[in-house]
């Protein structure tokens, strides 16, 4: 048995495939490519796949990972990305396979780039609105948790961010806590922006870095 971590990008329209459905897409692609994957040993054996850090519906990802186990240890894992890519929908592309070096629990932070536009506002206006929001003493918004909706202050998590205007869009880059112990979804900031201004925004959010507590890329 050999553990393998597969890196892939999820871009374009494939960002509208939910995490649950991504699991299905990957399972079918693995079945189709005949990679010797280990199946669970229950009444209904199915290929065993785990994802280190689920990606929200509507987000692109540049360094997403999933872990599988191979039953054939001699299988050349460098073949895996090309094999999978023959069987994946538009926008999802595997680009690397290697033996995992870190545990998913070590994931601590993620970096996001959010491109924000609006039908009735210029990039400068949006930029101004966001910078007003981020410079408040507290940014209170609602966060849905398993136990219900609770109020949180987003201000303390704002350690590392950058905001600029680019053509008709504003671009917000931010690094936030991520992982199983604490996870802050960047969309919360946009939600509070909407609450504050009452405007309608269109955004594309891309997760482009996942790191451990020391800032080393998740491997």
């Amino acid at each position, binding site marked *: 048995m050999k553990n393998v971590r597969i890196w892939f990008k999820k871009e374009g329209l494939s960002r509208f*495939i939910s995490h649950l459905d991504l699991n299905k897409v990957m399972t079918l692609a693995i079945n189709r490519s005949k990679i010797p994957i280990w*199946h669970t040993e229950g009444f209904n054996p199915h290929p065993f796949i785990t994802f280190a850090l689920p990606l929200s519906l509507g987000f692109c990802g540049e360094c997403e990972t999933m872990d599988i186990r191979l039953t054939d240890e001699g299988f050349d894992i460098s073949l895996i990305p090309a094999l999978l890519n023959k069987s994946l*929908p538009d926008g999802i592309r595997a680009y690397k396979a290697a033996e995992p070096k870190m545990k998913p629990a070590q994931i601590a932070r993620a970096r996001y780039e959010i491109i924000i536009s609006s039908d009735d506002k210029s990039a400068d206006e949006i930029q101004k609105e966001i910078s007003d929001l981020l410079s408040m003493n507290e940014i209170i918004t609602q966060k849905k948790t398993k136990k219900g909706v609770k109020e949180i202050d987003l201000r303390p998590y704002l350690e590392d961010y950058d905001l600029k205007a680019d053509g008709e869009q504003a671009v917000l880059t931010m690094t936030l806590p991520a992982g199983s112990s604490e996870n802050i979804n960047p969309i919360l900031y946009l939600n509070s922006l909407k609450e504050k201004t009452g405007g309608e925004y269109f955004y594309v959010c891309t997760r482009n870095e996942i790191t451990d507590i020391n800032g080393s890329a998740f491997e």
Partner: protein
Amino acid sequence: MISKEVEKILLNVQKPGRYTGGELNSVIKDKESVDVRFAFCFPDVYEVGMSHLGMKILYSQFNERDDIWCERVFAPWVDMEEQMTKHGIPLYALESGDSLDKFDFIGFTLQYELSFTNILYMLRLGNIPLLSSERTQLFNIVVAGGPCACNPEPLADFVDLFFIGEGEEVDLELIDLYKQCKSNNESKQEFLIKAAQIEGVYVPSLYTPEYNSDGTLKSFASSHGAPEKVNKRIIKNLDSLYYPQSFVVPSIEIVHDRAMAEIFRGCIRGCRFCQAGFLYRPVREKSPEVIDRQCRLLCEGTGYDEVSLSSLSSSDYTKIVPLLTKMNEWTEKENVSISLPSLRVDGFSDDILSKLKTVRKSGLTFAPEAGTQRLRDAINKNVTEQELMETCSTAFDGGWTTVKLYFMIGLPTETFDDVAGIARLGQQVVNAYYSAENRPKGKSVRVTLSTASFVPKPFTPFQWFAQDTIETLKEKQMHLKDSITTKKINYNYHDSSTSFIEAVFARGDRRLCKALLKANERGMKFDGWSDFFSLDKWLEVFDECGIDPAFYANRQRSFDELLPWDHIDYGIKKLFLIEECKKAYNSETTPNCRQNCSGCGAARWKEGVCFEKRKDMV
């Protein structure tokens, strides 16, 4: 590719994956290099439409041809409709993102009557004029096929032409004719007149009905050389028929997410309520070698690890055990499970079960359809109580603890005692559990009784029958509920008001087009979904149009009445249906096609079971 405008609204809707396209195996072509663009429309949401085998077959078959590009269109859910309307986005096809009005053909599949409002809903969202007469160019031709095309009349004003019967050959013939007419600069009218000469094509605008003073049909005249009777099309050899090597694999979860192969068409049984059992006669089987190969290719092409062998009654496939044996040679190795839907009570054998290793033990479903032997005889559902009990005992001994039984209420000749018989049958199944020696120890049994309300359908022996009124159906539901005395039995029933509207459209005529139009103006859609269906709205619509829905649903027709679908010919003789109807009222059964030929008329297609050797023949 869908437009940036669409992309923007997708964040505001539920399940946006329904609207993106880009799935594995979806077909992208250069629109400049094809001659004919065909929008295959399924009048329901993505998850339902993508589960439909017919669409998968025709999609692949069309796209095999270099000169045709077939794309898929589904009905957007209301949240998406709201966004599309707000942003001025017309209904588009998933492959190119182009709106419906860019297509040569806009084709609908008619799987259930309650989807009719969605056809108009989709046309309107696609900026296509609803009435056939308003579309004057040889372009945006609206076509329809599928089981509900057997009575096309309620849609006659909207659809330019219907495919009657099986579509695989006739649709390509029609497209060739279209190309020819197009290159000769012929008009839409000239095209339609020529199309009516193709066997299996019905052009409603070439026919004119006249009515008697009591509202019944007086005559139905054809013009421009269109045939008086439109024959259905039938595929003679299923083995050599085109079958896709792969399906579009949805990226989101759908209703039936698996590989599917047809094992035969038609049904030998002749249950008198079942329209499919008459429309698809005669039974034609695919050979086990062909099915096995097709299943294997499909699993390889899609990655599915479940394959479903589809037919109207799986256990009636004559070579079922050899087929399963053959398939097991590779399915076990590759962790592929086989599912066999539509098993009859009498077809549930150990032999089959042992071959379906991965049948989930969660539940078993059978459809005795009626609660007493007399009524089962009347509807020709030739299943005995003893068979049901033996099957359930086998299942209980094999470790099952839940059984679902499907019934219909409101069947012809049904009494309140027949209805109570459903509860008695449920009780006997409970008793069978406790007398099964090898039943799972320490577990209780759950029997679910489910009733649908009977809807009389064209081309069945019950096509003349007056459907029970909503009130009577409700009384029967309550009577059944009161007859159940144990908590081990659950009872579910379908809303009888939807069955009433279904009955109106199933046996309706052209005058109902007005009602559909009015319903569309009022924003009615998704009638098959309980969230949207409203009897009150329908009654208002009928009232405003001066239509009495009971005339269509609750009126007993006489055998000599001219029926709105009498000019459509599925090969089943009307005289045979009349004989079957009379036998039903005497609770007399008719043997199945393999036991004895009953002379229904399907032999005129010169195929299938009608020409098989029967055991009693020497």
